Structures are given as structure tokens and as C-alpha cells.
């Protein structure tokens, strides 16, 4: 934290622009390769789609320049790369009999998601305002999670009742609940952290919290779990568990929480195995994927095994885009898109994409480490854990590291809800990273280093909240000294 005062951090938006161009070249290049392989020509549509992607990416970049100049420069390019690759693969699968026009829908959703994320950046200004929504977030989470089981609204697709239909539109509200739950966890723990840390019972080397401190968290966990078991959505259940444990651990740094979380996870797993036939089925598939009986049965291991065949077919270097048979795996463009990438881009290509995920995750974590307020730390860490758990649950499920559950690969898989959620997460983390990196010039009266000092003030009246906006308003780039910006900041604050 002290580095902010000594190093004069640069906005690094130019670096982002360069990376963004590379990202666009990768995504659009993949799209062009698909066109050349599958239809031997690149018609006007490709250029329109490419232009849309360029406009979206550059537009988002401009918003960052204006609104969060010190935001992490890696996050946007990586998200754009993965999103572009996803569209290319979905487009490639549209050439098979099983899918049609999904890529166009995905591009529309990308536009909607990026616009929504940009709007969130502009409207919210500072992530700390989310802290005021702690309990509203809990309420919203509950509503979102319960929506799909409301009669008349919900739809059951492939055994998991996670969809909501309004007319022809369908949506997975649970995807957005990830964000609201992360906000609730972060807000609740930032508020009650001290209480939880101080009051507790020591049992041996571990300090266990009081039950009443656990109450609201436990309630949130039970609700999430209950709804998810009812909805048969094991992937999200696993993710909420992980989020719950990770955020509490980050908040308290206490190993006892991991132990408690581990017990909860184990209990949840046993419960799910006992009570949910769907879950039991998943375990059987995982353990006995090649058993002919399980392979042959309905909802058996066929998909998993075919996915592994696809990965194996790709081998080290892959078949090349358009030359494999990824459509042999059911849900190849959504849940199983990782298998499609593994087949056509090979271990090298898929490995590179996993590395991108890993860097993206690390940047999220970097934002958590860098930001000054506890709420921001917990929120960024929570969102990072959501990302890593999504990737782990999806890829681990496909590669048989863990039982396969239905989760979508962030940014890659076809599906608007998840895409929107992940782009909103990007917007929030960018805000947090902006808060982490931007220079602070605090007056002598402000305590910025003491524990719990930052984040307790009203974000709207805080000086830090304005620094960023004013820096961009003056159009100053990296070269200019930040001191000059902040000098003019005071007079212009509050204009927006």
C-alpha cells in the first residue's frame, strides 16, 4: 500500500490498448480461420462481426480511460481474447448439423454484456458503493436463486432447473446471483470481521467463531445450497461452497474456517449423494466412466467419454480449427466447449487458454491484494475465486479430475447469462483494481494505513473516489505527473 505513495503508478492504458489489439487479432483471426476452413471464403459478415468486436473492445477501453484510468491493463485484453475465441468456436460449431446461428446470438450477448459492464463502470464510479447493498444483495440473491423454481417462470433444461423464461427469452438468474452473493459475503464480512475475529472459542489450536456471528452467513449458505439441490445445479452448489469458504478464510486468515468449510463441503457432498439421484449419478459417471452400462445409459457417461475422446483426438497440437469433430460431444458449444478447444487447438492451445484464465485470476487477486479497503479485498478475492472455481469445475469435470457438473467456461461458452455475469465481474474488478493502483494523496488527517480505516468512509464524499474521475477528465496520460491531476481534482470533483 505504501508503494502507491512512492512509485507514482502509471495508468498503463496504452499497454492495455496494445494488448487489446493483440487480443482482437487472436479472436478475429480465429474467426477468419474458421471461415476459411469451413466455407473457403470470408464474406461481408465476417468484417461486420470483426468491426463489432473492435468497436466493443475499443469502446470499453475508452470508458476505462475516462473512468478508471488506473485499472489493471491485463484484465480487459484477456477477457476480450477469451470472448473472441469463444465466438469463433461457437461459429465453427454452427457449421455442424447440431447448431445454427448461435455465434450471432453470442455476439449480441457479448455486445449487451460489455455495454452493461461499461455502464456499470460509468454509473457505479466506485466499488465501495456496493457495500451499501450488502443486505439488499442477500435479498436479491435469494430472489434470483428462487426464480427458476417459481411455477410458470422456470424451465427445466437437461435435468437442471436453472432457467427462467420470459417469452422467447431464457435466462439463468443463478449466474447473476454469483455476483450478488459475493457482494453480500464481502460486505457482511467486512462489517463483522472484527467481531468474528475477537469473539470466539478456542478449541485446541483453532479458534472457532460464535454461532451468532456465523448466523447470517450460514443462512446464506443454507439457502444457496437448498435452492441448488432443489434445482439440481451441482456445479453452482460447489461454487457457492468454495466461495463461502474462501471469502471467510480471506476475511479471517484463520485456518479454522477452512476446517469448518471442509466439514460443510463434506457434509454437503454426502447429503447430495444421499438425497439427490442426479448427484449420485454424477459420481457414478465420474468413477466408472468406461463401464459399458454407465456409458450406454441415458444421461450416462457418454458425454464425458466423448469429450475425453475429443481431447485425445486433439493430442498435443490439435486438429486445427474446423478439422476436428467436436460436434460429436453433446453441448459442444456450451458446457463442453473446453473439449472442442482441446480437440481443435490441442494441448498447447487449450493450455494457453488455461494460462489466460490463470493470469486473469491472478490479476483479480492482484486487485484484491492491492486495494485498500477490506470490502474491496473481499469482493475481488471472492470474484477471483468464482472465476477459478468455474474454470476448475468445468475443466476438472471434463478431464475427470472431479465429477462433471454443469457449469460454463467463463467467456467461452455459449450462453448470455454467464457472459453477462462474467463481464459485470470484470467491470467490478476493474473498478477495484483502479482503486488499488491509482495514486492517493491523502491529507495528514486521513488514516489510510491502519486496519479498517479505508472503506468505512462514505465513498461519495471521499477524496479517493474522485481522484480517478478527475484524472481522466483532464485528459492526462501516463506521461503527466499525477500530482498535477489531483491538484485540479478538488475543484472538479462532483461534476458527474
Amino acid at each position: 500500500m505504501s508503494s502507491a505513495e512512492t512509485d507514482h503508478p502509471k495508468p498503463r492504458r496504452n499497454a492495455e490498448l496494445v494488448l487489446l489489439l493483440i487480443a482482437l487479432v487472436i479472436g478475429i483471426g480465429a474467426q477468419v480461420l474458421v471461415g476459411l476452413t469451413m466455407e473457403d471464403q470470408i464474406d461481408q459478415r465476417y468484417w461486420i462481426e470483426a468491426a463489432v468486436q473492435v468497436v466493443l473492445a475499443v469502446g470499453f477501453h475508452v470508458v476505462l480511460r475516462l473512468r478508471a484510468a488506473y485499472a489493471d491493463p491485463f484484465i480487459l485484453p484477456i477477457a476480450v481474447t477469451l470472448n473472441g475465441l469463444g465466438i469463433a468456436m461457437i461459429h465453427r460449431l454452427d457449421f455442424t448439423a447440431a447448431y445454427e446461428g448461435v455465434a450471432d446470438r453470442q455476439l449480441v450477448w457479448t455486445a449487451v454484456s460489455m455495454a452493461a459492464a461499461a455502464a456499470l463502470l460509468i454509473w457505479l464510479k466506485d466499488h465501495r458503493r456496493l457495500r451499501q447493498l450488502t443486505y439488499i444483495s442477500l435479498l436479491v440473491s435469494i430472489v434470483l436463486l428462487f426464480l427458476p423454481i417459481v411455477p410458470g417462470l422456470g424451465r427445466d433444461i437437461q435435468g437442471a432447473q436453472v432457467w427462467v423464461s420470459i417469452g422467447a427469452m431464457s435466462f439463468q438468474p443463478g449466474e447473476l446471483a454469483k455476483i450478488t452473493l459475493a457482494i453480500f459475503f464481502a460486505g457482511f464480512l467486512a462489517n463483522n470481521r472484527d467481531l468474528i475475529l475477537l469473539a470466539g472459542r478456542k478449541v485446541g489450536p483453532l479458534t472457532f467463531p460464535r454461532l451468532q456471528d456465523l448466523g447470517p452467513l450460514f443462512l446464506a449458505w443454507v439457502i444457496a445450497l437448498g435452492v441448488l439441490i432443489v434445482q439440481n445445479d451441482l456445479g453452482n452448489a460447489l461454487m457457492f461452497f468454495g466461495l463461502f469458504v474462501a471469502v471467510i478464510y480471506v476475511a479471517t486468515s484463520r485456518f479454522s474456517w477452512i476446517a469448518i468449510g471442509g466439514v460443510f463441503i463434506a457434509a454437503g457432498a454426502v447429503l447430495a449423494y444421499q438425497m439427490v439421484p442426479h448427484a449420485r449419478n454424477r459420481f457414478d459417471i465420474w468413477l466408472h466412466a468406461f463401464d459399458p452400462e454407465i456409458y450406454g445409459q441415458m444421461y450416462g457417461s457418454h458425454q464425458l467419454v466423448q469429450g475425453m475422446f475429443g481431447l485425445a483426438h486433439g493430442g498435443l497440437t490439435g486438429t486445427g480449427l474446423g478439422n476436428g469433430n467436436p460436434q460429436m460431444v453433446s453441448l459442444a458449444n456450451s458446457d463442453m466447449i473446453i473439449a472442442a478447444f482441446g480437440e481443435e487447438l490441442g494441448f498447447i492451445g487449450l493450455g494457453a487458454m488455461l494460462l489466460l484464465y490463470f493470469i486473469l485470476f491472478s490479476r483479480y487477486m492482484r486487485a484484491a491484494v492491492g486495494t485498500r479497503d477490506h470490502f474491496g479485498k473481499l469482493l475481488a478475492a471472492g470474484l477471483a475465486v468464482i472465476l477459478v472455481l468455474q474454470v476448475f469445475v468445468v475443466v476438472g469435470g471434463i478431464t475427470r479430475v472431479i465429477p462433471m457438473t454443469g457449469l460454463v467456461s467463463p467467456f467461452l461458452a455459449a450462453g448470455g447469462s454467464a457472459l453477462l455475469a462474467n463481464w459485470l465481474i470484470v467491470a467490478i474488478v476493474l473498478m477495484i483494481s483502479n482503486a488499488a493502483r491509482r495514486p492517493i494523496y491523502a491529507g495528514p488527517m486521513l488514516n489510510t494505513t491502519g486496519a479498517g480505516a479505508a472503506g468505512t468512509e462514505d465513498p461519495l464524499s471521499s477524496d479517493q473516489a474522485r481522484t480517478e474521475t478527475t484524472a481522466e477528465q483532464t485528459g492526462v496520460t501516463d506521461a503527466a505527473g499525477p500530482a498535477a491531476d489531483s491538484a485540479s481534482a478538488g475543484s472538479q470533483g462532483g461534476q458527474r
Partner: protein
Amino acid sequence: MNNAIRHTWVVSVALFLSLFVALSLIQVVLADDLNSRDENARQTIANAGAPRGPITVDGAPIVESVPSDHTQYDFQRVYHEPELYSGITGFFSVTGSSSGLESELNDYLSGQSDSQFFDRITALFTGRTMQGAQVELTLDGELQQLAYDLIPEDRRGTIVVTDVTTGEIRAMASKPSYDPNDLAVHSASEFEEAQQRLEEQPGLSIWTNRALNMPVAPGSTFKLVDTLAMLESGDYDLDTELDVPETLDLPNTEHGLENFADGGCHQREQAEFIWIFAQSCNTPFAEAAMELGQDEILAAAEAFGWNQSIEVPLSTTPSRFPTDELSDDVLALSSIGQQDVTATAMQLNMAAAAIANDGTMMHPQLVDTIRGSDLQILQQPSPEVLNEVMDSSTASDITEMMVETVESGTGFRAQSERFDVAAKTGTAEIGDDDGLVNSWITGFAPADDPQYAVTVVYERIELSEGSQLTGSQMLTMLEAVIEE
């Protein structure tokens, strides 16, 4: 708090590492094992889309694989003159099912045969796509076309022409036929649709060859077998006088066995064997069969190849003569090619060819040469004796009787001005209410120096139309194949 975040990061690194380990296991270490699993259809697709070797007639491809775009399969199987050759080539479908030579010679056509091992190794190292072997058939394209055109549409007919001295098949055409291109589509659902549509067509089978796999009642052509048994017993020769009753009472049944109403048999009450043969009188043959016994007839039939499957290399369906003991009445009916006796066109043609070739039956052969993609010969079947059916004097006796059949008997329609034709006709009642019959003729020419055997058969046809078609078409084929 930052330490906890870092710890979380470290745990996540471990998660990512586990993913990398799992991925490298699946994609690299265990890839070969996964790729070769039975459940893995990708290998099938790779094979289905691989460039299979062509099948050629007179050096020109009748089936070949051409590069294909827009599907997961790299190559498209194309059948030229599809209906003309469908029974022989069969089809090759991406669903994994195939028939005909596409199935029988799959190892060669796909390049997976043992003799192509070094080709495969070379292809592996040079990165070249493995080319399947090319198969040249013994067929004569013009003759095949002629035979095919002779058979009227909407009739179930087969014409077979073979070289009697080598066994090479020159023509083997039949109708109804189909277009294998409809089945070589790159979509399983389109394939199933086409398959269903084709299988609904009466009399059509996409899985078999009519000449090789459709044994039906041979009728009087089976008297060639009786004649062999009778001559070999020593009790009969061409001039042996036999009774020609109009009706033969059969034991254990009220029905008698009659001669053909429109034959010439009623003209005489007694006649020499050669006359009876030429007029194809039923009663003397049935009586002789009962006298000789089932074993003798069975032995003669099996000498000709009944109850036995051969590979040409398409597998033939065995023509059937009952091996379990028959009562005399059934034996009598069997001896005139009714009841449970069946024969394929190829079986009867083999019988005629054996008689033509001094009693030596050559193995019918459809494949001339199989060459690797480098044109090196992988296989070239040489003429092969299948069986010594009879001695040459017996063969020439039967030849004489068959010549007589054409000159003054039931085979008169096959009479040629250019050479003597030897033939035996047959009409099998199929016990159907419409009075339809199987109409047969089998024979060879020139009688004094036999070159080619021809068999024509129509199933489920009206009696008069059948005998009209068979005799004249046999003649057409013989005059076409035998050079002046």
C-alpha cells in the same frame, strides 16, 4: 488479509496444476489408448473420410474417393454408373455399414491390409495421406452394360457371364438396382433415410448381390444335377429308353407329378434320355431320382457346389439341396428343382461352366488385380480349380444333351447362326396364386470349344414372358461376348 489472499492464490495454482496434469494425461500420455477405444467413433470417421482406393473396370474407376469440403469427412465416395454396378461395389457409408466389395475388400480399399503395411509406415513418416489400394475387376464394362440394359425395368432379373476356362466373371448384372451414392452421404440421418427408402422397395437388397445371394427354386435347370447323377451311376446313357408317363404317382400323397402342359413330352410314352432332357420331361427324372436315391443326387449336387459358400471374393449364399433324409415324394419334387431345392444364378452358371470346361469347375473370380497406391501388385488371383466335377466324357455327353435342347428342345430361343449353343432351361413354380414362376436358362457356347457360360434368371415372372426373355437374352449375351 493479504496473506490469506496469497494463500488462496497458491491453492488455486494447485488447482490449475491439477488441470494441466489431467489435460496432459488425456491429450498426450493416454491419447493413443483413448483414440483406439471401441467407443471412439472418431477413428471410424477418420477411416470413413479417408481416401479409399478406387474400384476399376477396364481401367476406368467405377468407384472412387474425391476430396470433400464442408463436412467432417475429408473424402467423398463417388459411384460412377451407380446402378450398373451397385450389386458388385455395394456401398460405403460413414455410419460404418457397408456392403459388396466395399465391405469385402475393405482392408485393401482402406489401406489396412497386411500387404500394405509398409505403405502405412511410409505414410506415417512422410505425413502423406494413406491411399487405399485400387481394385481392378474382371468385368467387361460393355458387356455389363449390355446385360443390365437387357433386363427390363420393374423385373427381377439377373444375367451372369463367366469365362469357363478361367472362372473370371465378365458380367454380373441384376435389377432392381439402386444408387449407392444415396447411401454414401456424409450424414447418418440422411443415410438412414435413404436406407429405409431403399429397403422398402420390393425385391431390392442393398446388402447383397442378386446373382450370388438370392437362391431361388431352380426348376428344371436342376436336371443338370440329376443327369450327372444318372450318367455317373452307369445305369443310363444318352440313348437309354425311359418311360414318359404324363403323371407320376408319388408315394404318401394324393398329388401326382406332371409334365409341363406346354412341353413336348406328351408326344411320346417312351423316349431316349437325350430327348427327355431336351424336352425337359419331369416324370422320367423324378422316377430316376427315386431309383438312384437321395444320396446320389445330393452327391452330384454337392460336386457342383450346392450347400457350399465360396468367395468370389463376395461371399455366395449356399444353394441348397436337403441333406436330411427326404421321403420319396419330396425327393421326386426336389429332383426337378422344386420344394426345398434352391440355386443362385452363380451356382447354376458354375454348373454350366464346369460342363463346358470338360468337367473341371473353375473358381469364379471377380477381381483381376489389386494394386497398391504405388501401382505395385498386391494381389492377382490366378485361375483356380474349384472342383473336378466329372470326367470329360460325361461332360461331353451332357454338352451333347444341352446342344440338343437348343436345337430341338426347350432352349430353341437361344439358337445361334454363328455357333452351337448348349443350354438347359428351367421353370420353377413358386406356389403363388398369381401363377408366377422363376424362369431360368443356363448354358454355354460354342459347344465344340466352350468359351463362356451364361445364366439368365427372372424371378416372379409370367411363364411366357420368362421363357421369352431368358432364351433370347442368353443368345444376345453369347453373341456379344464370343468374337467372330
